C-alpha cells in the first residue's frame, strides 16, 4: 500500500542524506521524495511517498521521528489532503501534429513551455493520476524526455498539516 508522509525537518546540510540513508539502511521503499522551504526559514518540509503495509509504515514513522533533525512526522493516510506532482515532458511534434498535441495539453490544463521544428515541451501539474493519464494520451506521438518532481502534499482545511492525526 502507498502512503504519503510529510516531515518537518531542520533546514541544514546533511538532513536529506540522513533521511535517505535511514530508508536505504533499513530497506524501506521510497517511491518519491520532495523537499523544500517552508513558511519558517529554519525549517524544511519533506514529502515522502512510501510503499508498504501498516507495520512497515509504523516503523518508518517511528524511525523518522527518532532522528534529531526531524521535528514532526505526519501521515496523510485517512486524512483529506491535496497532492501535486510537476511534470515536464518533451514530445515529438512535427508541424502537422502540433495542433493536436497543443489541444491535448489544453484539455489537461498544461502549458507549452518550449517549441522547436520537431518537438514541444509541455509543463503539467496535478495529482498522480492526472499526470499518468496525460502521459498515456501523448505516448503515441513519441515521448522524447520526461522530468518529474516528487509529490508535495498539504492537508485540507484551516489547520496546519502538522496538527493532523498520527503525529509523533
Amino acid at each position, binding site marked *: 500500500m502507498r502512503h504519503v508522509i510529510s516531515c518537518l*525537518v*531542520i533546514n541544514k546540510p*546533511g538532513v536529506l*542524506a*540522513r533521511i535517505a*540513508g*535511514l530508508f536505504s*539502511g533499513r530497506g524501506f521503499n521510497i517511491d518519491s521524495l520532495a523537499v523544500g522551504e517552508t513558511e519558517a526559514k529554519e525549517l524544511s518540509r519533506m514529502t515522502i511517498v512510501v510503499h508498504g503495509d501498516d*507495520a512497515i509504515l*509504523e*516503523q518508518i514513522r*517511528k*524511525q523518522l*521521528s*527518532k*532522528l*534529531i*533533525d*526531524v*521535528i514532526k512526522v505526519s501521515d496523510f493516510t485517512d486524512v483529506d489532503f491535496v497532492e501535486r506532482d510537476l511534470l515536464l515532458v518533451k514530445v515529438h511534434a512535427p508541424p502537422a501534429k502540433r495542433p493536436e498535441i497543443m489541444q491535448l495539453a489544453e484539455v489537461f490544463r498544461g502549458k507549452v513551455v518550449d517549441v522547436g521544428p520537431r518537438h514541444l515541451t509541455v509543463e503539467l501539474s496535478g495529482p498522480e493520476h492526472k499526470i499518468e493519464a496525460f502521459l498515456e494520451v501523448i505516448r503515441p506521438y513519441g515521448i522524447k524526455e520526461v522530468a518529474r518532481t516528487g509529490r508535495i502534499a498539504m492537508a485540507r482545511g484551516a489547520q496546519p498539516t502538522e496538527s493532523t492525526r498520527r503525529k509523533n
Partner: protein
Amino acid sequence: MSSKGSEVIIDSLRKQGVEHVFGYPGGSVIPLFDSLYDVKDLKLFLVRHEQAAAHAADGYARATGRVGVCVATSGPGATNLVTGIATAHMDSIPLVAITGQVKVPLIGNDAFQEADITGITRPITKHNYLIKDVADLPRIIKEAFHIASTGRPGPVVVDIPVDITLAEFKGEIDLPIDLPGYNPSVKGNVKQLKRVAKALAEAERPLIYAGGGVILAGASDQVRELAKKCDVPVTTTLMGLGVYPETDEKLSLGMLGMHGTAYANYAVMNADLIIAVGARFDDRVTGRVDAFAPYAKIVHLDVDPTAISKNIEVDIPVVGDAKHILDGLLELVKQKKHPEWIEQIAKWRRDHPLSYADGGLKPQFVVEKIYEVTGGDAIICTEVGQNQMWAAQFYKYTKPRTFISSGGLGTMGYGFPAAIGAQVGCPDRTVVDIAGDGSIQMNIQELCTAVQHELPVKIAILNNGFLGMVRQWQELFWDRRYAHTTLDCQPDFVKLAEAYGAVGMRAEDPDEVEPTLREAIGNGRPTLIDVRVEPEENVFPMVPAGGKIDEMIGPKEPELL
C-alpha cells in the same frame, strides 16, 4: 574574555564533568593536544590505535555510567574509530567522539588526511556534527553530550576542522541547547501502567526479561524490587547480566537465548506473561520469531518507541525511562506468590543445569575459578565468541556494570581496550578481560597503554588455538570443515607480554589455574595469562540459528510438571 577554539573545547568538556579522555594525536588535532598539555584536571590516556580509544571510552562509559570521550585526528584517525563507534551504537552506549578535520576551505577537496567522517558515521551514530563556525563550538559540544546521554543513549561524533580549533572565540560558553526535534519520553503513560499491573495480577506464570536498557537507566534496584514483591523470576540478556543477582537460586534464571540456560529458555516458552524491560527482542534471544513465547502476553517497557513491536508483536507497550516506569508500576502492584511456577522452574533448573564434562583444562573451569578468586567482585570484560559465552555463563553476576561485552555488534578486539577504559573509570576494582587467542591479538598493542598508564588489567586468554565459535559452527553444521579457523601461528603470549613490559604467565594444568590467577590479581601490574584449554570444547546449550529456543542442542527434553 577571548580564547582559542581548542581552549573552548576543553572548557566545554570540563563543564560536562569530563575527567578522562582516550585518544591519539595527529596533524589536525595538534592545537587541541597542545591546549591539553598543561591541563591538570582533564587527563588524556594515550592509546596505540584509535579503535582502542573508542573501545576504551565505551568500556569507561559502561563501567561508570558517564559519557565516554575519545579523540582522534582526521582521515585515518577518524576512520579507525568507526568500528568502536558502531560497537557503541549497537549497544546504546553514551559516547562522544571528537575528530579532527582538515581546514574548512579544504573540505571536499580530497585534502591530505581528509575523510567525510560525518557521512561515514551517519548510520552508526545517534547524531553527528561538522562544526563550520567557532561560535557554534560550545553549544554543539553541550548538545552532543545531551544527545549521547539521554533517551536511548548512543554515540555522537563531533567533527572539528583544525582552523576552528585555532580560531578566536569570543562569548559565552554556557549557551542553551537548541534541539526542537529531540524530546525523549521519560514518564510512562499511567493508563498503560495500570494495564501492566492488571496483567501481572492475573498472570500465573510471569517472567521478567531484562536487558541492557535497565543498566543504562540505573533501574536494577527497581527490577529486583518488582521481582521480589510479585515473586517473578528474572532472566537477562547478555547486556543485562548483573541486573538481578545470579546468586539468587530461586528467582534468577541467568541468561536466555541462543547460549542461555535451558531453564531460562523453557521458562520463556511456557510463560503466560513476559515483562520486557530495556531489551529489544534481538534474534539471539528470540530464535524463530513466530514460535517465540507462544503462551505469553508481552509487556514491553522501553525508552525507544522504535524498539516496540519491531520484531515481536507487543500487547502492552509503555514508552519511557525504565526507572520512572518501574517506580510507577511498583506503586500499583500488589504482593503475590506463584508457588507452582517457581516449583516448575526449580525442577527445570535441577534437571538441566549448565554443565561441562571433566577431562583436561576446561575453559568453563577457568571462568569458574576467576569467579572464585575475585569473590565475584570483579569487572569482567570479554572479547567475542566462545570466551564471551563462557564468561556470561560461568561467572555469577550480582551487580550492574560488572559485565562489559560487545553484544550487538560482537566486535573481536573490544575486550582489552574496554578493560583499560573500565580500569581508568574504576581504579580500585579488579578488571579482568576474558579473551580468546584470536580476539586478543586484534588490539594487543594496547599492552603499551596499560603499561604506560600503570593500569593493572588482567587478561585471561582461553587459548585453544582456534577461532573457537566459528569452529564450533563448522563442527556442528559444516561437517567439521575447519576452513581458516585454525590459528596455527600464534605468538608466545608470555614472551609477548614481557616484550611490552607487562607480566606474562601461563597455566597448562587445572591445578595451576587458581594459584596463577591469585598471583596475577595480587601483583598490581598489567598481566596476561595464557591458559592452554581443551581445543575443541563447545558452548552448550545452543539454539541453532532461527530455531525454537526450547529446542536446544545440549540438554535433554524438558519435562513439564
